[in-house]
């Protein structure tokens, strides 16, 4: 275990060193900065403040979208469960919404709602579909044997939901949440590209156009780290719950 960690750290350092050498030599062109110059951006108070402000805006929009999308997706899946005739229609609606590339909805949201809300809305739309599919299938994942047992003991629809199908859907919900975190970040950043006032998406776009290469890389790296951290947290929660809910 310890050995593996040491090897992993060594490998990362080796990659960083190779990158540094490659970028310094100029063989990769002007657009590849050295790791040292990217690191320097984080240490520069002016840039650090900008990145912090922007990351906060992007994260807030992503979090709002995640919560709203997850709530809406869960409620819609519950409606489909409790009112079976509505299910085929809701399935089709969710698939249709997902089939539209979120990016083309950006301009519509900008004009319809506001520049400030578009990132959260785009995040919510992607999350809605993922959570709807995860919860809807999770609610049907309990084995027929368990359902027959509950029914024989006289369980109605509500008891089936509360004591069997809802707990059965928890692992599937967490899997959905895991992929939703990345989707929410993408939605939020794409939403910012349509002209939100602040955010990491804006920083990435502006620095690309102004050829501020180290700052651009620093912003991209920050997005990657945030997404990975969210994914890791959800993955840990999923593993913890999976152990508890497995037979």
């Amino acid at each position: 275990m310890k050995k593996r960690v040491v090897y992993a750290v060594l490998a990362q350092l080796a990659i960083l060193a190779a990158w540094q050498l490659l970028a310094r030599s100029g063989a990769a062109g002007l657009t590849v900065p050295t790791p040292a110059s990217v690191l320097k951006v984080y240490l520069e108070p002016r840039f650090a403040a900008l990145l912090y402000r922007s990351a906060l805006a992007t994260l807030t929009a992503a979090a709002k979208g995640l919560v709203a999308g997850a709530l809406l997706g869960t409620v819609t899946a519950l409606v489909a469960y409790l009112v079976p005739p509505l299910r085929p229609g809701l399935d089709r609606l969710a698939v249709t919404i997902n089939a539209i590339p979120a990016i083309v909805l950006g301009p519509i949201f900008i004009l319809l709602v506001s520049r400030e809300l578009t990132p959260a809305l785009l995040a919510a739309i992607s999350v809605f579909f993922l959570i709807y599919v995860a919860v809807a299938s999770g609610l049907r994942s309990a084995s027929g044997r368990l359902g027959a047992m509950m029914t024989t003991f006289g369980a109605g629809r509500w008891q089936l939901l509360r004591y069997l199908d809802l707990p059965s859907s928890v692992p599937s919900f967490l899997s959905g949440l895991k992929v939703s975190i990345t989707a929410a970040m993408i939605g939020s950043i794409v939403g910012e590209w349509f002209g939100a006032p602040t955010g990491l998406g804006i920083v990435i776009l502006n620095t690309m156009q102004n050829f501020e290469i180290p700052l651009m890389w620093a912003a991209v790296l920050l997005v990657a780290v945030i997404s990975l951290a969210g994914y890791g947290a959800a993955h840990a929660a999923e593993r913890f719950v999976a152990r508890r809910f497995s037979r």
Partner: protein
Amino acid sequence: MAKVEIRGVSKSYALNRGDSVLALKGIDLTIEDGEFVALLGPSGCGKSTLLHLVAALEEVTTGSILVDGEAPSLLRDQHRLGIAFQDSALLPWLSVKANVGLPYKIAGRPVDRARVRHLIHLAGLAAFAEARPSQLSGGMRQRAAIARALTLEPTLLLLDEPFGALDAVTRRRMNLELQQIFLERTLTTLMVTHSVDEALFLADRVMVMSGRPGEIVETIAVPFPRPRRIDCMRLEQFHQLTDHLTLLLEH
């Protein structure tokens, strides 16, 4: 306690293109109040289907099933049925204690902790009340499932090959323990099994079913007095009955 009357019951399943397959044919069976009846038959003979019909999990095609003159679905909706399946069907995220108490929750009644504790003790799981099903052996899980079936003091107990997945030794011990539980109360019970020993050891009457479509081909009143001990399996009469029933199953 309850009297179960099964009259002329048949069950067919629709297949593709309007065809159908007959699973049960002309079943007539009366289970008296407090009687333990075992349904014995080869696999696929429809004995579990009959149990599902009594549990109102499926509907009869023709004929009728009445429990104390009422439809089984009514009994079920009043939480007066107990059932144990071959695969225990415990909720994997709940402790043994919570699983045994589950019928109270389903019925919307307050959990009687003392009774749950008593049942867990009766099932020999006192040390495992807080354990989850994945931490138990197959035999322990089945005992927990049977304890759960008894939680609400059911009018009618249904056992669907409750020990079918266990090895012969464990199964025999389970049969002894189950009979111990039944000494404490008389309970109208319908058990489905493909084990001749199990049927003879536990039941008051054994019904033998034929292969598909399932029909009752013979009824035997088990002559051994209760409480039955494991010795009763060594009696000459037990062997004779075993041979007789085994022969019937092979036809």
